[in-house]
């Protein structure tokens, strides 16, 4: 069985260290959520797992083999990324952008076969982007582009999918739709899904396990009930919140408390 394991990993840019001594493991069929304040290193972690930056300390293992023993192409056959704010070339059509997802599976001399086109079609169906296929990327909205990069990641047919804030540009319907798709992929296709999220409620609802990052290291990890409570949120984010069990499934639901309420209550 494929798994992803980080062993005491330290990541940074040049001499500036962003993440220290990060260790965790994720297995097939699991959705792992990475939460934490702005600048806590969520995106850096994804860069580390995809070999954009090299750990200055520690190792990352895929299936027992060191990440750096694989070729870039092989790695892209296993790990796909849905980036946060991707630059997409405006003149390309939506179809052509999703087509790029097949790159790791095609050699220099191979053209896309019927099978590749079928994969692209189902990836675009799953993300509701098929109707956009012939539109130019420059004409698409932020949310449409985000769904397009999800389709591209699906076209890679990966074993591990890393999503960096996949819901940031989406309305509530597509947020549910996208995370529902992530859940479906992890359950039906046994993928490892790693998602960074700002929205603590979505994180609690959709992730099997959460890792809370704070000041460049792991503050706590575990099931949502263990990680999200008013004390940890106050500690890590410095924000005053109330956490209640969700009325439907008892998962932690985080409610913000406005300044007005706070002052009213203290009186």
């Amino acid at each position, binding site marked *: 069985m494929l798994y992803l394991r980080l062993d005491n990993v330290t990541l940074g840019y040049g001499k500036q260290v962003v993440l220290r001594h990060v260790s965790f493991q994720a297995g097939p069929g699991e959705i792992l959520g990475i939460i934490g304040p702005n600048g806590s290193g969520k995106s850096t972690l994804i860069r580390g797992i995809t070999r954009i930056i090299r750990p200055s300390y520690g190792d990352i293992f895929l299936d027992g083999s060191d990440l750096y023993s694989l070729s870039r192409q092989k790695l892209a*056959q296993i790990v796909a990324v849905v*980036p946060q704010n991707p630059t997409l070339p405006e003149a390309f059509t939506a*179809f*052509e952008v999703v087509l790029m997802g097949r*790159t790791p599976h095609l050699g220099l001399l191979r053209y896309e076969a019927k099978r590749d086109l*079928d994969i692209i079609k189902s990836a675009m169906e799953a993300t509701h982007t098929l109707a956009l296929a*012939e539109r130019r990327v420059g004409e698409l909205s932020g949310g449409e582009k985000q769904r397009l990069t999800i389709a591209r990641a699906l076209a890679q047919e990966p074993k591990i999918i890393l999503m960096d804030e996949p819901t940031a540009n989406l309305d509530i319907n597509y947020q549910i739709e996208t995370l529902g798709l992530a859940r479906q992929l992890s359950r039906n296709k046994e993928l490892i899904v790693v998602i960074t999220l700002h929205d603590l409620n979505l994180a609690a609802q959709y992730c099997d396990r959460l890792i809370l990052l704070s000041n460049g290291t792991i503050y706590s990890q575990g099931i949502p009930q263990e990680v999200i409570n008013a004390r940890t949120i106050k500690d890590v984010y410095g924000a005053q919140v109330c956490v209640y069990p969700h009325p439907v499934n008892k998962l932690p639901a985080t409610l913000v408390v406005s300044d007005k309420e706070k002052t009213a209550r203290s009186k």
Partner: protein
Amino acid sequence: MALESIRSTAVQKRTGYPAQWRSRIFAISALAIILIITIVVTLGVGSTDIPFGTILQILLAKLSISNVQPTWAANMEVIVFDIRLPRLLLAGLVGAALAVAGTTYQGLFRNPLADPYLIGVAQGAALGAVIGFMLPVSWQLGSIPLLAFIGAVSAAAMVYSIARVGKTLPMTTLILAGVAIGAFLAAITSYLMIASGDRLQGIISWLLGSFSLTSWWQVAAVTPYILIGTLVIWLLARPLNVMQLDEEQAQQLGINVEQVKLILLGAATLITAAAVCFCGIIGFVGIIIPHAMRLIWGPDHRFLLPLATLAGAIFLILADTAARTMLAPTEVPIGVITALLGAPFFLYLLRQKKRAVF
């Protein structure tokens, strides 16, 4: 519009392939046929007009496809085969090379203003050629193109090694280093030109570009570079597409970005150097042709590169025909023609399709 989209989805259902691919493949075949027609027709144009039939017969006889009894004057054969054909083929090769190199640079830099001369190749070639012109006249014939070639390649290599930071090559640094080295080399060239005395005329006409006095050995000398370089670039069309995202995404899609950059820059530089070393610095082709093709047939390099290759060849053959016939027997510098023909057409395209091209 509506009808077109209905038809294109119908095509998509039948073959599974997008309709655009089909029209682009059709365009490539059409341009290939136009190229052949252009070559045969322009062979007949010039100070001596030679009928179309005679040209075909001469070509067939030369290629020993058919045993035609010569019904034409011997000098016609010399004009067609030894004077016009090599010149025409060199113009075609150079046009193709500059268009491919331009497409590659524009793709690598993700910048519509990039052209084959961006990283010092032209200035290096010019300096090399000018040094060649300073040599004794009897040495010049072979040494000018050789020095131009060496100048072009070493200027690009210098820019590359300055711009390199560790194992990576930031494209912005590359452009800036190219501009700086280019200006430096141009200054030396200008100085040498002032000091060149009566050789100035020859230098200036080389710098403006010309295909006059082309013979077969020149065609033979540049063909391998241009052929191999173009082939290498064509093979890397898909990685070049993926690199239109950004470097991080390209790496995450399995592209070895630094390696692909190095190979593409090397190949584009080599074919540009080969293109300019005999005929001088011909402007405009390398920036306009890629753009025009992108505007009409879209940015997918797998189609764009072959389209630009063919269109570049056709365009420069036509431009050179105009250059040698417009004010015959005086030759108009080909750079003047490329700008005169190309700029209005390009502006027309730009007005037609006001949308993103990258």
